[in-house]
């Protein structure tokens, strides 16, 4: 009896020892060297795996950062400058300054401005509605309101407003990952450079039709009249395909264009209320 137990213990121990030896040599033979800095960089990254950087996930991004000679073209918009600076410190490289951006919706076609001419009763998916017809309004460029962007947002930054039928983007929560930009079948969402105090001035319209049909479909459509372009002293406004576009980099936020726009297609957000002209001039004179 006792000998059976002894033999069992001994044979199993021997077997275990031999396996351990084999495994040790196999592990040595097939060892994969992994840069320990990849783990370090990955720990710094936001772990959102959103794909905003262009890679499948944060691990891929970390590998790319470690492998790269310079950070040119590599940026994590979610983490922003602090994260990139930290990654640069670990890797002993220089982080490039990339302006933070935020998503804006280039459509303002709520039922108040853009009358509904039909009712959509199909599958609640913008991609499907877009392939079937122009949508509930006569504007074939405007928001369809089925919320593909809302479903694509992993950061809870975008919600459909039931009253206007348009998505509302939260500046605080938006990390400009670009998921909504890809989700929108009508390319209505743009990532624009963030200005201080979240100030924004942009053309909230994507209608490329001529002035007449555009205006007929929506009261706040850009009719490409060119007034904003003339008013702009900084050449920030271009008109292409019957649509004005304000370059967020050249724009100095003087707000002259918004005052000129006959259809109120240019939206200004988060600015202090405009002072009456006389007061403003007096203030300028006082310096």
């Amino acid at each position, binding site marked *: 009896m006792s000998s059976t137990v002894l033999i069992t213990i001994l044979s199993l121990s021997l077997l275990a020892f031999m396996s351990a030896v084999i495994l040790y040599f196999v592990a040595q033979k097939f060892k994969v060297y992994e840069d320990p800095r990849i783990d370090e960089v990955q720990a710094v990254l936001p772990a959102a795996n959103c794909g905003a950087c262009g890679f499948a996930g944060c691990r891929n991004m970390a590998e790319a950062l470690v492998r790269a000679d310079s950070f040119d073209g590599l940026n994590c918009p979610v983490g922003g400058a602090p994260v990139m600076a930290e990654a640069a410190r670990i890797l002993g490289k220089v982080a490039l300054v990339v302006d933070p951006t935020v998503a804006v919706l280039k459509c303002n076609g709520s039922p108040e401005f853009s009358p509904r001419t*039909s009712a959509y009763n*199909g599958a609640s998916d913008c*991609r*499907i509605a877009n392939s079937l*017809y122009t949508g509930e309004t006569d504007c074939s460029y405007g928001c369809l309101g089925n919320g593909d962007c809302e479903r694509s947002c992993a950061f809870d930054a975008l919600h459909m407003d039931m009253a206007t039928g348009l998505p509302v983007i939260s500046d605080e929560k938006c990390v400009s990952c670009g998921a909504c930009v890809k989700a929108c079948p009508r390319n209505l969402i743009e990532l624009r450079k963030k200005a201080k105090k979240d100030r924004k001035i942009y053309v909230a319209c994507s209608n490329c039709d001529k002035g007449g049909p555009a205006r007929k479909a929506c009261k706040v459509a850009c009719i490409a009249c060119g007034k904003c372009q003339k008013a702009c002293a900084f050449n920030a406004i271009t008109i292409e395909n019957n649509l004005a576009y304000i370059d967020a980099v050249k724009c100095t936020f003087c707000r002259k264009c918004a005052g000129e726009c006959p259809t109120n297609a240019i939206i200004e957000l988060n600015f202090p209320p405009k002072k009456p002209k006389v007061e403003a001039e007096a203030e300028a004179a006082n310096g």
Partner: protein
Amino acid sequence: MLKTFPIGGVHPPENKLTADIPIEYLPVPDKVIIPVSQHIGSPANPVVAKGDTVKAGQIIAAGKGFVSANIHSSVSGKVSKIDLAADSSGYRQTAVFIDVEGDDWIDTIDRSNDLVRDIKLSPEEIVKRCFESGIVGLGGATFPSHVKLTVPSGKKCDVLIINGVECEPYLTSDHRLMLERGEQILVGVTILMKALKVEKAMVGIENNKPGAIANMTRLSASFKGITVHPLKVKYPQGAEKQLVKALMHREVPSGRLPIDVGAVVHNVGTAYAVYEAVQKNKPLFERVVTVTGKSLTKPGNYMVRTGTPLIKLIEAAGGIPGNTGKIINGGPMMGKAVSNTDVPVVKGMSGVILVPLEESVREKIKPCIRCAKCVSACPLNLEPYLLMALSERSLFERAEIERITDCMECGSCSFICPAGRPLLDYIRLGKSNVIKMARQRNLK
């Protein structure tokens, strides 16, 4: 035992309200809008300019490339502008606007009603004439007919199949044509046989049209090689592959065309248009459109010039009833709702259905319980519930493996689904994405 296709299919209520109403000519409207793209393939190039005077039958846009079709003026008058106009989807595309003056036709058209049986043209000339006359498949797909008549080298066509099935509920335009223009259709079939160099043509007609079957059978006795075959009623028998299977017991493989099994399929409406083009020299600028609906006061089958605003056609049928919820361009199974009644009638418009509000609202979407009714209904052996799930999640590579591009969008799956799921909506989405993906891959 009547012939039919073996796999899948559904039996929607027929509702052929206009089957006994003869074709009526719709008066020429005072304005027409003629889109330059009324077919599958590249849009035609306008060849007239603003201010030009045109006659009915005059070419106003020339087909570009092989898969394209000429567009002809349907009226006489002055070109008021060439501009963008909304089509039935609401999207704007190039169209020629003509203000109508009188009703002059170009001199070469034989306007008499005499039947011309002698075919003078050679096969090559017939194909050329079909291209020149802008003939496209009038069953609804509007594929340019001259392409189908050009048999690719290495392939052989031995049977011409004529599609008189009209399996879509409500529609009766082909039915009326077979009753009223049977002889012309059969001459058209003979012309198509000559062009394809085949000795045999089979006309397939569903058994719910006994009048058309009797008429065509009687008339076909004096035409060599043409036989008429009654078919068991089942949707979608009018689809090419299903019809080939039903009539010839030949299965068109996945991703192939009927020509790969030696068949070419043309619609009876197309055969009539071919007759008019070849024997009467009349290009395709008018067609029969069924205007129907349960609450319509004067539903009927109307011979309409292309470019006529849809509202004129509906007014002729008694105007839009108050309880209308949806106006469908095409049949109730495959047609699409129009967003605007100013859109023009085009070559592919076989019917207009005014659906009452209570019937037009879709069911509430409930979860899929994998009952597999859609799988049994699919005539192409696909798994619609799976294709929908894949498209919904944008898994297009997998959808391609599951042969999503085989889908012909017949809508049997959406029709049969007890949970009211928008199967076809999502499959269509997936299909267009897979096609886009494949095209990009081919470019590389």
